[in-house]
């Protein structure tokens, strides 16, 4: 589903190489995890895939079901089925959470040539999904992420993901800052979406989340590259010994 080949990325504004040749293949129906020390380029990878400005791809490719992601506008990537749950969800004062989600859902439907959801259909859908994530109607009415706690913001990301039903879901440290209960809610939200036609790329520091969202493949990222790939046991190794051993081994 997602194919990344030798992806090299530098900052647009300064001469700083951040991704130094990333190779990654994520198949439909699988869950991949990326772990790695702070500053290794995990968020940069997710931003570049989602189409954030400020980065320059100097080499390599990234495709979603064969379509060149790097050529598309961010909204086209979303309509093509890519979703990024932000490490730091953005607050948007003045834009109601509900209005935002409805605009997003219908914009994607329109882009795909599908019928837009009526207000009634949308409401029914969002109520059901929000309930699963313990998001109350008051939170839905509030401006996007404004005054939300850290946990509420992350649950709101998962709600968006559930409503948009993307096929490639990237979760950037969705577990950080969550207590155990909130993390379980998030994991349940993700697991409910697991499907043969859908893939997940879960960026995390902790084994904790991976206890709930079982990955098929675990990658270790360091210095702008994927330095090691293995099964779920690799996450345990990180949990028990930190990154030092692995980094020393591949150095």
């Amino acid at each position: 589903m997602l194919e990344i080949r030798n992806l090299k990325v530098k900052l647009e504004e300064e001469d700083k190489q951040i991704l130094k040749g990333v190779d990654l293949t994520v198949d439909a129906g699988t869950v991949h995890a990326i772990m790695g020390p702070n500053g290794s380029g995990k968020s940069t990878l997710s931003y570049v895939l989602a189409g954030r400005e400020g980065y320059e791809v100097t080499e390599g490719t990234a495709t979603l079901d064969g379509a060149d992601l790097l050529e598309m506008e961010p909204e086209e990537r979303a309509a093509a089925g890519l979703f990024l749950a932000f490490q730091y969800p953005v607050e948007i004062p003045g834009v109601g959470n509900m209005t935002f989600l409805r605009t997003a859902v219908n914009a994607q439907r329109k882009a795909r040539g599908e019928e837009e959801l009526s207000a009634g259909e949308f409401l029914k859908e969002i109520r059901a999904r929000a309930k699963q994530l313990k998001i109350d109607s008051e939170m839905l009415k509030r401006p996007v992420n404004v005054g939300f706690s850290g946990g509420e913001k992350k649950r709101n990301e998962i709600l968006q993901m559930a409503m948009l039903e993307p096929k490639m879901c990237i979760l950037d440290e969705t577990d950080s800052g969550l207590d155990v209960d909130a993390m379980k809610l998030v994991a349940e939200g993700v697991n409910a979406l697991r499907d043969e036609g859908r893939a997940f790329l879960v960026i995390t520091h902790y084994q904790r989340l991976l206890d709930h969202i079982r990955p098929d493949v675990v990658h270790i990222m360091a210095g702008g590259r994927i330095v090691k790939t293995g099964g779920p046991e690799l996450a345990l190794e990180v949990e028990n010994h930190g990154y030092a051993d692995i980094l020393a081994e591949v150095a």
Partner: protein
Amino acid sequence: MALAQAKRTATEARLAALELPAGAGWATRAREEALARLRETGLPARRDEYWRYTDPATLNAPAPEPAALFDPREPMPFSEVDRLKVVFVDGVFDPEASDDLSMAGIEIERLAETAARDIHWAKDLYGVLEARGQSPVPRPLAALNTAAATDGIVIRVTGKAPRPVSLIYLHRSETSDAVLHHLVRVEEGAEMTLLENGPAAARFNKVLEVDVADGGAFHHVRAQGRDHERRAATHIFARLGEKSIFKSFTLTVNGKLTRNETVIELTGDNAVAHVAGAALGDADFHHDDTVFITHDAVECESRQVFKKVLRNGAVGVFQGKILVKPGAQKTDGYQISQALLLDDDSQFLAKPELEIYADDVICSHGSTSGAIDETAMFYLRSRGVPRDEAQDLLVIAFLAEAIDEIEDEAIADDILARLQAWLARHRH
């Protein structure tokens, strides 16, 4: 201080070109006094501190610059609102197009008719608040209006007006120079909503004097636009009694030059005054909101909320003052003026001022100008919202605080729909 020669010349040239109303009735004296006020200060000039950001030349000139007629090809604002319509064509009342002026709880007359009488309550209001508003800063275009206006509407509200009164200004002549003067007297505990919309004329000079007695409420929503070549100078003068409420909102889209002055005196304790504006301009657009609020009683609240969205070289101006007089304790004053600049060519000029002579008050003010928040923009787009729609959402969000000042939901929705349609037409 003697008036500068240039000012005197400009003022006399304008007066020479005017046909001042011939007199009978109570209005004659008021007009003469206004003329004297105008001659004393002279018409505004670019060198006046109060006109630093807005060039009054075309507002002063003996003849207006012609303005092309504009067909918006859509129903006018407030079309869906159940209201009493009062229509003016190029500044002249049109009885045929207007509704019957009778309504429970409210007396509506035409200025032209009341002015010819010997005795009328309007005598105690016409030019009175305008004259009070001439200090500390002169407002010569308002004095000119009082001296020259022959038409307008005179309203006395005695109960709760069941429907809004809607003033509709049609523009039919490319060279029309309209002068209208309206009076509203809201009696104790009475309440009304006044709506205004329409291009009015090539050049429009309008004064609205509003006197709200104790416990009265006056709501005002105005939509200026969508014609592009209009030049307008408007003044609202309001005086508020105890526990009275005054709320005014203006949406302005397009127009070569608009100067909206609002002058409010809070003279009774616990009075509330809110003035808000949302202005959207693209290219040849100069919009000036000038507000002066005087707190002269205790425990009054005032709010000024002005937002501007500017693109392609449009210019926005805000001059807002809160004056808290000695003894006006427990004043709660708030003022915010903000511009969203959609490109580097547009400009926002702001002069917020506080002058406070009481010690137990809360007054806050802020002024900002900035671009679209790119982080928010990316977040919206990453969810599939196309760039244009995302920008519209962020613009509407930016304007929300001003639009929230409109109390009536149906009217607020109408304004919001106008905004959205304007944004959709002005994308690149």
